[in-house]
């Protein structure tokens, strides 16, 4: 089972990212589950969301304590929250930042991947909503979920131009992972 924890701030679409992740995995023929760390959501406040992906139907209901993957939507969280907490050895942490992994002071055995998702979002969407960029990066870096399924789901959820642009963001982010 793959267990993914997403850290972000209210309004950055962390919960939506987890939902899209589960929908995409399901479209790829896998079983999936997504849920928020139920807080009192306010724009900008730290939030968490979770997703599980497996071959078998998923029954467990607890939060994720030992994620195989972590996605960090906002690098300022690194100082306030232990984003690497519990991450499995051999796991991966994908961080939205303009800096390189070695410039981040992260104490972890996991592979650290960085992408300037905010810039990508601003360039294409004109808004600092970086969740789809990070999903594209997740697809590119892990191959757990196909980029096609992700693009289908984002277009289904946001019909019209918004969905198209977000699909483009996903593609671009995936390309960056392959550079």
């Amino acid at each position: 089972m793959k267990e993914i924890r997403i850290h972000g701030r209210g309004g950055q679409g962390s919960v939506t990212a987890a939902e899209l992740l589960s929908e995409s995995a399901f479209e790829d023929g896998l079983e999936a589950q997504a849920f928020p760390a139920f807080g009192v959501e306010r724009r900008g406040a730290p939030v968490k969301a979770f997703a599980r992906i497996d071959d078998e139907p998923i029954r467990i209901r607890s939060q994720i304590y030992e994620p195989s993957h972590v996605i960090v939507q906002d690098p300022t969280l690194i100082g306030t929250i232990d984003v690497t907490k519990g991450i499995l050895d051999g796991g991966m942490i994908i961080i939205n930042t303009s800096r390189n992994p070695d410039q981040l002071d992260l104490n972890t055995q996991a592979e650290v991947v960085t992408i300037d998702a905010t810039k990508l979002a601003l360039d294409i969407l004109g808004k600092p909503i970086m969740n789809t960029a990070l999903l594209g990066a997740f697809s590119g870096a892990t191959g757990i979920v196909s980029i096609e399924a992700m693009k289908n789901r984002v277009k289904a959820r946001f019909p019209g131009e918004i969905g198209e642009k977000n699909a483009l963001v996903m593609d671009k982010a995936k390309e960056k992972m392959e550079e």
Partner: protein
Amino acid sequence: MVERRVMEGSHAVAHAVRLCAPDVVSAYPITPQTHIVEKISQFVADGDLKSEYMRVESEFSAMSASVGSSAAGARTFTATASQGLMLMSEVLYNASGLRLPIVMSVANRAMGAPINIWNDHSDSMGVRDAGWIQLYAEDNQEALDMTIQAYKIAENQDVMLPAMVCMDGFILTHTYEPVSIPKKEEVQEFLPEFDPEVKLDPQNPVTLGTVGFPSDYMEIRHEQYQAMENARDIMPDIFKEFEEKFGRKQHSLIEEYKTEDAEIIIVSLGSIMGTIKEAVDELREDGKQVGAIKIKAFRPFPDQELRDALQNTKAVAVLDKNITLGKKGALYTEMKDTLYQAETQPQMTNYIIGLGGRDIPRQSIKNIVKQTKENLNSPQTREVRFVDLKEEK
């Protein structure tokens, strides 16, 4: 080909409501229930559901409107949680006393104070004597299925009682997972038109809501008691019929999980069952003889089924997401009453878990099993244990 797709638990319930097509939906929002009535309003606006959608100004109104519409012979739906359910409580008794088969979703949420929006069962357990059928869903599929089943049970001529379908707030309501949505025609075949014998009808006028004098009140209550007993009798058949119709395995009022040779059995209800089953599997791999029982129906309470299922076990761990102050967990006290009539009585321990949304990891379930086993080999020191209290680390 049945459509199976990923959706939020709230939306799964909204789809069930769309398929049952109530004539009236009375809606008032409260976290974590809001997405249910929000999605239903979308169905109504899009023309996918032809219901009278009443936006009322409080939960008291929501239940009052439901009583009015159900009394007029209209299939009725509403939904609430926590403090909202408490604001309804006076009217809940009217709904059941008037024998009105309203179906209501309860997105289980803790009672304040302190203010808390997260999940436990203190709300629905707090109204367990209001005369409503109570079903508890383990996952989003079951929340959908139980909503359809609840109408069928509630509207049965020998029952005619309101029904609550309880689902854990956030843990189910806000979780996305795959759900199969039955076909409209199949649901229509399963659930006949609602046409009650007694209703407010201008062609055949009656008074509903009259005074029950001491000379009559007791008989009317006795009929209600009997109606709940009837519900217990017919529910297995309804579950069976549902299974045949929709092809999904349905258990009876309880579901047994690996209880066959189990020395220790965990009994609980709601979404925690998924985590419990995972823990049971892991303990089984370690050679531990552990099983679990899910209570699907808390009202009527499955006495005989539980006695049968627990007759060979040594110890029972009852997990309650509520606490009756001055007594014990609600499920636990009911279980003890049930097992008093059994031929052999297993040792029982009550574990209070997950109050106010405290997360319950797999390890906590394993710790519970370990503690229950220890209790078997030594005199029980404490019958009620609060799990994962901070000072008990």
